[in-house]
């Protein structure tokens, strides 16, 4: 498995676990930000920090086991796949931003808007990584 494919798996899995906990379990349970907007920073910030630490530790572990490969620059296939993931992820992000920036201000409280914006970012990044992984697995004919 390519170094960058392993990195995409690492990012995707840690992201699904970390933000799955926030949005799927913890978020709805305590309704972060409903009482105090600052709660979002503490709760989401904690999850984002935990995610970042998990990715850094995982990346070091992957790099250690694939030293030479990890040092290699991304080649044309890696760049093409990354572009494809970013492009599709961008559309997801745009839809989310239209929702939180144009639609929700007329009907929803600020804490919901902020959480939806964060969810849109997480979804866009998830889609990005899924597309990258599918492209490595199934092939890329751009």
């Amino acid at each position, binding site marked *: 498995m390519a170094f960058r*494919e392993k990195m995409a798996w690492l990012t995707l899995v840690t992201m699904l676990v970390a933000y799955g906990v926030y949005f799927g379990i913890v978020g709805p349970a305590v309704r972060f930000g409903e009482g105090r907007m600052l709660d979002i920073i503490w709760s989401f910030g904690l999850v984002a920090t935990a995610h970042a630490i998990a990715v850094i530790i995982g990346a070091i572990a992957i790099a250690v086991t694939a030293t030479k490969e990890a040092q290699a620059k991304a*080649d*044309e*296939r*890696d760049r093409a796949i990354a572009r494809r993931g970013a492009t599709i992820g961008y559309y997801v992000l745009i839809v989310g931003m239209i929702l939180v920036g144009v639609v929700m201000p007329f009907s929803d409280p600020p804490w919901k808007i902020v959480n939806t914006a964060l969810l849109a970012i997480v979804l866009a990044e998830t889609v990005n990584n899924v597309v990258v992984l599918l492209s490595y697995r199934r092939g*890329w004919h751009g």
Partner: protein
Amino acid sequence: MAERRLTNMIRTLRFHAGEMTQAELGEKIGVTRQTVAAIEQGKYSPTLETAFRIADVFGVGLDEVFSWAEA
């Protein structure tokens, strides 16, 4: 119109080049071993520049490496 796809003879050419490894070929043309494997398996269509580089490594013409064949 019949569906066509890009096929290649890289595996055969590597064999005739003293069983050159995918990593060695990748190093010569500036891509990773995984990308060479993906090209060989038809999972990735290389850029024209890389295609020419591959042909150059084996000292053959582009049409001896790649062909546009019916699937």
